């Protein structure tokens, strides 16, 4: 009987720790939810009002007022989708090539890829500004997308290479012997097994470009204004419109949450697919 009570105790302990962690993660979001349902006066009330009449007018304002964030959400979506798609389109074949081919200078390339992640982004603002200005891509979608790709691509490649390296070469060799072309072997045998990894990469890349603020605010200008920049409008010298800011922030979270839910299925599938006997992919 002892191991069983021990197990129960252990479980209870783990649950408690998990609940505490979850609390830390959810408090800010819950606070934002509550704030978004109050009016501006109640937000500033001290002590905070616990009982109040919830209102949806902040959401309405954020979506329909003159300062509606809808166009900004669209901008964000265009930028994030373009960045993600282009990154994946380039990163998948690149990572596969690095993982498979015996390329000279494979090690230095790997290091370079990681090194780009070590540079503080702010150090790159001025050079990027100058470059975009020179080629006339300031305040343009392509300008921001290209810049986001310079960050996301090395990271995506680095993430995917290790997954591709885990897929046994023999599986492709089997496909080649079964008369598949190199492309078919990649498409039918390698790619489906990398689905989980690609889903993870998609989420990371999308999330990073969706949440990006620094480059967007400096290089985006007036026409291309992603939602992160637009939200900054709720903070100004006279006052901060906390309720509307919260509503906008929550709305901006939706696409990301949706993506996570959609990709989850693939991630789990990617993680649970068993492969070559004995090796057992995790």
């Amino acid at each position: 009987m002892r191991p069983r009570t021990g197990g129960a105790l252990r479980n209870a302990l783990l649950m408690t720790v998990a609940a505490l962690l979850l609390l830390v993660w959810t408090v800010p979001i819950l606070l934002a939810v509550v704030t978004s349902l109050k009016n501006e006066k109640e937000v500033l009330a001290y002590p905070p009002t616990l009982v109040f009449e919830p209102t949806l007018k902040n959401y309405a304002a954020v979506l329909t007022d003159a300062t509606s964030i809808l166009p900004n959400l669209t901008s964000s979506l265009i930028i994030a989708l373009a960045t993600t798609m282009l990154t994946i389109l380039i990163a998948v074949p690149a990572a596969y090539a690095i993982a498979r081919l015996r390329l000279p200078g494979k090690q230095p390339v790997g290091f370079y890829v990681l090194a780009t992640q070590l540079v503080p982004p702010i150090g790159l603002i001025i050079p990027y500004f100058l470059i975009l200005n020179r080629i006339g891509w300031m305040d343009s979608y392509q300008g921001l997308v290209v810049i986001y790709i310079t960050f996301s691509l090395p990271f995506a490649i680095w993430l995917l290479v290790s997954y591709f390296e885990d897929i046994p070469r023999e599986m492709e060799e089997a496909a080649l012997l079964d008369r598949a072309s190199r492309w078919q072997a990649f498409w039918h045998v390698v790619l489906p097994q990398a689905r989980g990894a690609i889903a993870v990469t998609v989420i990371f890349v999308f999330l990073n470009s969706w949440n990006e603020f620094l480059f967007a605010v400096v290089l985006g200008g007036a026409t291309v204004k992603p939602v992160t920049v637009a939200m900054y409008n709720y903070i100004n010298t006279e006052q901060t419109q906390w309720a509307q800011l919260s509503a906008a922030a929550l709305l901006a979270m939706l696409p990301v949450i949706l993506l996570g839910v959609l990709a989850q299925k693939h991630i789990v599938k990617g993680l649970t697919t068993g492969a070559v006997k004995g090796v057992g992919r995790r």
Partner: protein
Amino acid sequence: MSKRGEVRLEGVGKTFGETRVLREVDLEIRPGEFFSLLGPSGSGKTTTLRIIAGLETATEGFVHLDGKDATLLPPGDRDVAMVFQSYALYPHMTVAQNIAFPLKMIRTPAAAIDAAVREAATRVSIEHLLQRRPGQLSGGQQQRCALARAIVRQPALFLLDEPLSNLDAKLRVETRVELKRLQRSLDVTTVYVTHDQEEAMSLSDRMAIFMDGRMVQVGTPEEVFRHPATVQVAGFLGNPPMNLMPATLAGGRASVAGLSFKAPQLASLGTREVTLGIRASALEFADEGLPGTVTLCEVLGEEIIVDLDVGGQLLRVKSLQRERIPEGTRVHARIDTARLHVFDRTSGARLEP
């Protein structure tokens, strides 16, 4: 006998960077043959198989398949199928999809694929598992699935890379028999790589022995077992391995570990330093012969294998008896001199008297 699946290797060699892993392999595999490449790990047997498959390109020499030069032909154009040691099943496809894959690649109509998949699966008795995924199969079932995938498009040549090594001992022996039956019924030329001499002996029509990147002998299992070409082959084949001892021949007598015995049939070899080989089964306990002390006795049921210390030299004797001989017992082992193998001491090459 089928007409397809003839393999001819001419002076094939392979170098990886600075390392030479295979040299001067000349080999002919006849249509319909069950041919084994046998050797310890790192001997070049798998490299040879991969060169035949087209997964590696020979850095020297030529590969001919069915009379045509295939040295540089890509694997898909060689009409060969292979079962890998790891099986290399596609984990995201069902058993049926795995077996269908080679047919799908050559754009076989769906109805024909279905029928062929069912037939191949039935041949290896996995027709009830078609909807499972490889991860849900046992090792033996995975192996069958890999076999079915290989036979489904009726290749000219069937390549097997240690296909039984991941199975447990009992299943290995069962599958061995089935494999042989399958090969006979399909009448397909088969090249089989193994490090297990018992497998090679029991399955092969002919076999090639590889040692240190060279092919050292080709022949039927009987030929290779009875007339090993080198001292290394002699030591590799047989269980327990052949007794090999340094000896001196002179005037029709051989002296081993300070003991001398008559060997008149070796007289023609004159006086020289040799390595004498004698199988454990060619020794028997007698009242006279080489005197030795029992250091270990393994009882295997119907027979015993006894380690003897003969003047500091280890000698293994296999005897058809069931009773254990206690350690320390003094015995005599008589050599059947007609079954002695003689090898040159320095080159290791077989010497025929």
